[in-house]
């Protein structure tokens, strides 16, 4: 945080913290414009933009036609022309029609114009499972974006981080994808500073300290990892839980430091298994810290299948504390 003096705080859910960040950004910078499907009059399907249009007007906060490529493409043009576009894609799983805009342009504008142009755009998108949404509403496409040169990927896990990271993302001169775990929108509350502050991109957070195992997670999986760590602690296993906060830039320093201490690693995501960002983390550790490893790295992930909308068995797909705890036992027993 940039602020040093103690400040007034307020108990906020994550969605309230996001709403608060957006309001502060609109207030602070007239270039900030928020748009997407249902973000205006309705305030968003999750109410993340609730009240913003009434307060800042329909020019700054506006509903768009229903077309994701149009939303991202238009945002790119707004960014090129000097505005600060903050687009909402209603669900991360609806991002796919816009991937041409993202992969062909958003990520490479600075590069393909040798910095003559850049796109200071933020794309917010709810992602992930755990709340029994319909088909395609629970996808975790972060690896696609992290694999796209020129875009940053931020995934907060707490209200305080969500506010600080979102304000940092909006300040950032480059495109940032900001994935918000649907499961966390209203299930977590904490004291959040009321003032404007930023949480720097590229700095992981140590959620709990421990000497035996490092569990690496982000977004919706942080709380799952933390619960597994708590259970392990009852059995005398010290688990250090890392919340990456941002996948791009990735804080490899904090990861390697922790691995050097524990020598055992579990990586948790709810994305499909093959080619996921968890594999990138695992490979980085294997390349940089193999001499510290005392056991093979274990990944706890979703499966190589579309996220199931079947309420009664959804939780089999999405990693839970039991699966993470099992992985912790596995690396301890090696």
């Amino acid at each position, binding site marked *: 945080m940039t602020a040093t003096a103690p400040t007034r705080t307020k108990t906020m859910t994550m969605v309230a913290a996001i709403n608060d960040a957006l309001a502060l950004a609109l207030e602070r910078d007239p270039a900030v414009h928020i748009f997407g499907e249902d973000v205006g009059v309705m305030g968003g399907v999750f109410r993340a933009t609730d009240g913003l249009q009434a307060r800042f007007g329909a020019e700054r906060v506006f509903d768009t036609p229903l077309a994701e490529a149009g939303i991202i493409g238009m945002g790119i043009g707004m960014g090129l022309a000097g505005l600060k576009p903050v687009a909402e894609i209603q669900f991360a799983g609806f991002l796919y029609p816009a991937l041409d805009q993202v992969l062909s342009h958003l990520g490479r504008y600075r590069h393909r114009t040798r910095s003559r142009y850049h796109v200071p755009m933020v794309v917010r998108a709810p992602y992930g499972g755990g709340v029994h949404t319909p088909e395609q509403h629970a996808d975790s496409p972060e690896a696609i974006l992290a694999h796209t040169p020129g875009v940053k990927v931020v995934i907060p896990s707490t209200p305080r981080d969500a506010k600080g990271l979102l304000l940092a993302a909006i300040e*950032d001169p480059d495109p940032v994808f900001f994935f918000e775990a649907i499961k966390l929108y209203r299930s977590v509350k904490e004291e959040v500073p009321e003032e404007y502050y930023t949480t720097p991109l590229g700095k992981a957070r140590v959620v709990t300290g421990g000497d035996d195992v490092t569990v690496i997670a982000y977004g919706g999986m942080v709380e799952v990892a933390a619960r597994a760590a708590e259970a392990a602690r009852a059995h005398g296993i010290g688990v250090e839980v890392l919340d990456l906060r941002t996948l791009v830039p990735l804080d490899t320093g904090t990861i390697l430091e922790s691995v050097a201490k524990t020598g055992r690693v579990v990586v948790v995501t709810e994305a499909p298994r093959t080619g996921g960002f968890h594999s990138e983390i695992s490979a980085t550790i294997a390349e940089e810290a193999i001499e510290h490893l005392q056991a093979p790295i274990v990944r706890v992930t979703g499966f190589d299948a579309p996220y199931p909308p079947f309420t009664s068995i959804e939780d089999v797909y999405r990693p839970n504390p039991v699966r993470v705890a099992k992985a912790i036992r596995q690396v301890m027993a090696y």
Partner: protein
Amino acid sequence: MSKPKTKTQPKPTPQAAGAAAYEGAQGEMFQLVTPEGTAPQPELLPDVPTRLKLYRLMRRARHFDERAWVLYRTGRMGVFPPYGGMEASQVGTAAALTHDDWLFPTYRDTGAALTYGLPIPQTIAYWRTSPHGWAMPQDLKVLPFYIPIATQYPQAVGAALAEKRKGTRNVAMAYIGDGGSSEGDFHEALNFAGALGAPCVFVLQNNGWAISVPTRTQTRATNLSLRAEGYGIPGVRVDGNDVLATYHVALEAVNRARNGEGPTLIETVTYRVKPHTVADDPSRYRTDADTAGWDAKDPVQRLRTHLLAEGHLTEEQDATVTREIEAEFEAALQVADAFPEPTPAEIVDHVFAEPTPQLVRQRAQIMAEEGA
């Protein structure tokens, strides 16, 4: 229309996509100068200096196109998508802009970019795949030539909307081909622009071909300007080989956008006389006879004939134009030749404002392996 094709037919029948389709569309198209050089509505013509300026810009664009071929064949230019024969479509529309406006060109719109003001050395460098060509000038609002099809359309809407939000009277002009108008982004952009009132001018260059696919295979529609109607915005169909006509309709559309009256779709009916790129072999999908029909409609010749007949240009003055354009290009080529080659580390530069730790390491790796 041509007869229906059968699967066993060895070659497509090209005629319907070419001159015949153009003739069929004549009555619906806005035209100021006939292929013979006559102007039935002289009161609509721009003033003589403007006519001479447009002529010179077309000659300049054509010279670039012709020299690019030679440079490619001698290994001094990369793969280049020629536009020769489409100068009226590109020059007339781009000439309606000022440098406060935005230009979103596709890969085939070098003629539009040159008209807008992209310097020739930079343009040569771009098609040489040099970073010096990628760095668009600070004083122009021209975007790099778009390779993906139709993606520039929504972006132009965004730039146009941004100008509107900032309270300027600036507009954005974006280009596309008939093939590109099949893409979803094209339709999303027209809809967005209409719904949000973006000051945008969409130029749809119907040049008959999307590589090897003729327009009649591309779409069942025969008048692409009518697509505007579906989005509640004006659509206009213009003879894309008549630069005075394209300039006229583009200026009207630009002025409408400036005055807050929203977007316009302009279909310029023209023909891609040249191959898709300098590396393409069009004999696989069309005949020379089909293309030859378009020589009689050549946009540069048409205006030249008109200017000579009206007494606004002499053969002597025309020869001077030729000499000046040639000299300008050769001087520009020398400037382009002097641009230094990129260093290997430039591969990882300009990804973010501040490189990530990962990029810093990768840059160091390149420096170590390839030298500075």
